[in-house]
């Protein structure tokens, strides 16, 4: 993997780094409760990252700077190193019509995930737009099936209601 940028934690809890091109990247995790079919409640983190305060496809165009990919995937891998009982969901959507492209790029970046982590892809239609969702979870998580079943079930519920 390419060397990564140094990043820092901001006052609001998000993480920030600046690329060699001078672009400011923000990475955040928001935490949500996630009930499963057996009424257990899991903690799932909602992952997001942005460039220069914009939710833009331009964030993924700079394929010549692999350090951006390396930095973000380091953060994701480190998340699981320190929180192996938790799961991450990453959504790709946008009114700009680039949700599919974001999903393709994230799938490519996910090849850098540690081998202990697996990814489950799904998608749904929500408010007339296609939303791609990826669940990241440690392979050995004993609650993996409950969480992935809930993930797929909730997405199907959204799709069925559209």
């Amino acid at each position: 993997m390419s060397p990564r940028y140094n990043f820092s934690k901001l006052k609001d809890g998000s993480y920030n780094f600046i690329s060699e091109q001078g672009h400011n990247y923000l990475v955040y995790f928001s935490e949500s409760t996630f009930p499963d079919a057996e009424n257990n409640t899991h903690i799932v983190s909602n992952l997001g990252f942005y460039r220069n305060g914009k939710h833009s496809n331009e964030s993924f165009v700079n394929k010549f700077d692999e350090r951006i990919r390396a930095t973000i995937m380091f953060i994701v891998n480190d998340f699981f190193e320190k929180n192996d009982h938790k799961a991450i969901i990453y959504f790709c959507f946008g009114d700009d019509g680039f949700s599919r492209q974001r999903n393709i790029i994230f799938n490519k970046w996910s090849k850098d995930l540690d081998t202990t982590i697996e990814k489950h892809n799904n998608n749904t239609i929500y408010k007339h737009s296609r939303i791609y969702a990826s669940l990241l979870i440690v392979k050995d998580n004993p609650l993996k099936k409950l969480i992935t079943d809930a993930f797929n079930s909730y997405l199907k519920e959204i799709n069925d209601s559209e």
Partner: protein
Amino acid sequence: MKKTANKDQTSEPEVVVHKNPIVQMIEDKKRIIKAIENGESLDTLKGIKIVSPI
């Protein structure tokens, strides 16, 4: 779906809580995107818990 009154000083309207957690997460992400684009700190978002897990 239930509504929660927003008592903070953000520019956000009333916060809606969704029964489907995926819908909730999608809507949360939309609010976060809007806050970032408006230059607002994420810790001003009512009902959204930003964490620093690493």
